[in-house]
């Protein structure tokens, strides 16, 4: 009989049947703690348990007066309490009814809106999705809890518990030196890191520290680096205060300001009003980085990468340092030459073709084999594809799959230090007929960016909502007309340089020293030139197979910024040989092998990784991975991040059945994956990706030793 008042049992066992159209029902069992399981949480658990992406309804089973089974709709916390109370022994039986995915994707499908009417639509769907998102954390907790209580876990679990404090200490010697760094990475690769420990451990796996530092030395190092950051930051802030909104400073602050207001704002850390000081910190980090790395400058997407670092470090300077470390690897993604991104696309296509040729042909048939809908995945390394906290886990797992790359002596916080220019001189019009003609001529090719820069000079303000009132005052005093002229001049000077046009008399020495951002503006101009190359590389739209002309990532002409995998590994190899530990192991082997060994020798706590059956299915579907026509070396694959490729391939494979069953076309596929933003199941994806990655590494070490020499 029903338990009356107060839930006697700590955990209520739940049995769920999921019904979807004509498909045969699916079942799941788990248990929940009724004290902490709200309706919201239950929905999220169900969504996770069945990997549900769309709308669904829940009902629970009761026996009516005649002993007949009926299902009563579960719509609120109140209903859930009733369900818990009436839970028939030994289970609470739930039934989940799906609406087909298509529909939930396209919310308004059933509610065509007439031309004139504007009735509010579909509260519920939105609410449910919001709840799912908001309670992701809670769900994680709830799931862990149920896993403890119940023997059979929901879905898959990570192969290992997250690295905890006690374990981490075992990787440090008495003076705090990190020993067995590779082992540390392996542990994190399998289980991630306990959130409270991330602040410390991320700096290690992000390659912030040179090798062999003691605990004390690390503290001093961070202090010194933080001071260095403050200096870099104060330089441009000083200029802002003086109203020197020119050149790159204007361009960068204008762009960054818009974007930090739209980055992870649903996370508590950045939530609330635009004055949130954490948003200001993110602004400072990105601006400092852009100004001190003129070849990369600022590009959209960087805020997504910096945001988790700031949340985790909760310290602006430390986050900046970590960002520099991360960008050492990722800055090529943001170069307008597009080489790195093109390579990543190509490798992803290769990988997919290799592991799931059937799905790949399907994509080809639908002209979707360019995989352009994976753009965000590749640019942000999947960061936005998972709920924020899941993304942290995914990131640390991915980072620790990469070989360590500690800086030689110390991490560089700038590529080319941004130097303060003297204050803006008094109004001195530079515009004349000639400058106008030049501007016009330039305009033919470069209207867009020129305009952006010019107008950002006029319009861009310091980060007003974040900066102090004094600063705002200065900004209002700023004489816009003059600035515009300065910029005209800058542009002119630049075009002179580029076009070897010497007719101007504007090249007095004091001018060139005065307008400091010229060099950086020139970089930008060059980048624009490169963009036309980029266009070429990507091909024009609709060319189908000709989209990628990238042939040989190592053979082709590489830009200086192109950190090709080979280079990384060369440095790596050296590091490995110099490393105090594992000298014996690395004597005759490449880093690849070392990595493979370390990843495989770590004991997997929980043996049930194989529950991720899709992987084995798809892997075998593709046949045993071929030896010839094989995938690129681990140090090349995915531009040096092979694990990212397997994350992407996993996600693609997890959806391929549905895509093919529904016969989705190019647009529908892109939409489908777009809808999945922040909704992928990190544990499942990681588990499958690990399996695939392990198989890939194994295949490599087994079959192609000859190719491994770096």
């Amino acid at each position, binding site marked *: 009989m029903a338990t009356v008042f107060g839930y006697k049992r700590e955990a209520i066992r739940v049995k769920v049947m999921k019904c979807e159209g004509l498909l045969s029902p699916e079942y799941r069992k788990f248990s929940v703690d009724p004290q902490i399981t709200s309706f919201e949480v239950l929905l999220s658990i169900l969504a996770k348990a069945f990997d549900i992406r769309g709308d669904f309804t829940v009902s629970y089973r009761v026996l009516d007066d005649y002993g007949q089974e009926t299902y009563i709709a579960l719509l609120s916390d109140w209903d859930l309490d009733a369900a818990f109370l009436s839970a028939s022994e030994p289970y609470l039986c739930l039934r989940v009814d799906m609406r087909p995915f298509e529909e939930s994707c396209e919310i308004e499908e059933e509610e065509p*809106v007439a031309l004139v009417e504007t009735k509010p639509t579909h509260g519920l769907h939105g609410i449910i999705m919001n709840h799912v998102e908001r309670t992701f954390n809670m769900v994680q907790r709830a799931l862990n809890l149920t896993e403890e209580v119940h023997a059979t876990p929901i879905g898959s679990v990570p192969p290992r518990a997250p690295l905890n404090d006690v374990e981490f200490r075992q990787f440090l010697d008495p003076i705090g030196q990190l020993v067995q760094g590779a082992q540390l990475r392996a542990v994190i690769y399998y289980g991630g890191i306990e959130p409270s420990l991330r602040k410390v451990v991320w700096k290690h796996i992000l390659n912030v520290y040179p090798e062999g530092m003691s605990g004390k030395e690390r503290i001093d190092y961070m202090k010194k680096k933080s001071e260095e950051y403050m200096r870099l930051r104060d330089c441009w802030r000083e200029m802002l205060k003086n109203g020197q909104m020119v050149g790159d400073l204007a361009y960068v602050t204008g762009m960054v300001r818009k974007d930090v207001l739209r*980055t992870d704002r649903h996370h508590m850390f950045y939530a609330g009003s635009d004055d949130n000081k954490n948003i200001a910190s993110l602004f400072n980090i990105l601006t400092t980085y852009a100004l001190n790395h003129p070849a990369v400058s600022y590009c959209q997407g960087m805020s997504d990468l910096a945001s988790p670092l700031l949340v985790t470090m909760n310290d602006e300077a430390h986050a900046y340092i970590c960002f520099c470390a991360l960008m050492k690897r990722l800055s090529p993604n943001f170069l307008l030459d597009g080489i790195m991104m093109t390579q990543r696309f190509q490798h992803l296509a290769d990988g997919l073709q290799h592991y799931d040729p059937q799905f790949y042909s399907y994509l080809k048939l639908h002209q979707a084999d360019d995989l352009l809908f994976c753009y965000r995945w590749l640019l942000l390394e999947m960061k936005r594809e998972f709920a924020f906290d899941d993304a942290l886990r995914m990131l640390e797992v991915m980072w620790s799959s990469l070989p360590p790359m500690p800086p030689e002596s110390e991490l560089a916080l700038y590529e080319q230090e941004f130097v303060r220019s003297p204050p803006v001189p008094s109004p001195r019009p530079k515009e004349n007929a000639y400058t106008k003609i030049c501007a016009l001529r330039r305009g033919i090719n470069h209207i867009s*960016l020129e*305009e952006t820069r010019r107008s950002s000079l006029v319009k861009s303000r310091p980060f007003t909502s974040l900066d102090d009132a004094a600063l705002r005052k200065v900004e209002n005093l700023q004489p816009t007309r003059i600035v515009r002229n300065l910029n005209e001049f800058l542009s002119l000077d630049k075009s002179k340089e580029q076009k070897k046009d010497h007719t101007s008399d504007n090249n007095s020495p004091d001018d060139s020293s005065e307008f400091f951002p010229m060099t950086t503006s020139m970089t930008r101009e060059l980048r624009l030139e490169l963009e036309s190359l980029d266009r070429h590389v990507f091909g024009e739209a609709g060319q189908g197979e000709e989209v990628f002309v990238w042939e040989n990532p190592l053979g082709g002409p590489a830009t200086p910024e192109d950190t090709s995998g080979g280079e990384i590994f060369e440095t790596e190899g050296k590091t490995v040989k110099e490393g105090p530990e594992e000298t014996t192991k690395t004597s005759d082997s490449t880093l690849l092998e070392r990595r493979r060994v370390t990843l495989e020798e770590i004991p997997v706590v929980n043996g049930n990784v194989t529950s991720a059956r899709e992987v084995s299915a798809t892997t075998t579907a593709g046949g045993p991975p071929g030896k010839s026509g094989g995938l690129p070396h681990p140090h090349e694959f995915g531009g040096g991040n092979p694990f990212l490729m397997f994350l992407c391939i996993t996600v693609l494979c997890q959806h391929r059945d549905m895509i093919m069953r529904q016969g989705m076309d190019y647009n529908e596929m892109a*939409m489908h994956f777009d809808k999945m933003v922040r909704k992928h199941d990190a544990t499942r994806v990681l588990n499958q990706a690990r399996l695939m990655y392990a198989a890939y590494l194994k295949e490599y070490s087994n079959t192609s030793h000859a190719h491994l020499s770096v």
Partner: protein
Amino acid sequence: MSYAYLFKYIIIGDTGVGKSCLLLQFTDKRFQPVHDLTIGVEFGARMITIDNKLIKLQIWDTAGQEAFRSITRSYYRGAAGALLVYDITRRETFNHLTTWLEDARQHSNSNMVIMLIGNKSDLESRREVKKEEGDAFAREHGLIFMETSARTAANVEEAFINTAKEIYEKIQEGVFDINNEANGIKIGPQHSPSNASLPPGSQSSSPSSGCC
């Protein structure tokens, strides 16, 4: 449930002009101050009715930043309508319209209907581009024009729907080849009694079940 036509739209314009907000206002009827900047492309969909016909709009929201241009460009293909958006409080976004227009014309089919939108009309006090200027630009380039506010929803419905009407008229006039999907128009799937993917409930409630 099934629509008579599907139109594919693309929303273009500088970063920060409010493209994603316009889309959200149209599909979800809300203004969300807290949302992501767009990387690559995002999408939305909604049904409307024109001339008593159900029309499904499939809308591609592109990233405005220059660096994404090579990616977003590939989405021009097969678009029947484009919303070209600028921000009335930032003149430079208006100044860039020509570039956007050239880009759009170059990469899309020639019949694509383009709606020019001056967004953020709620920020009258910060206006930098006069309505007349938008009007003039539109007239000069043969576009439809509207000022909208994604925040207050003013004219948002109209912007999307008027574009659809224009496309619809072009279809009626036989300008569009509706059998060529590259034009961004698809004829809806025919009703079919054996549609297994429909949930049992919606099948029985459908008034037109079983006929086509």
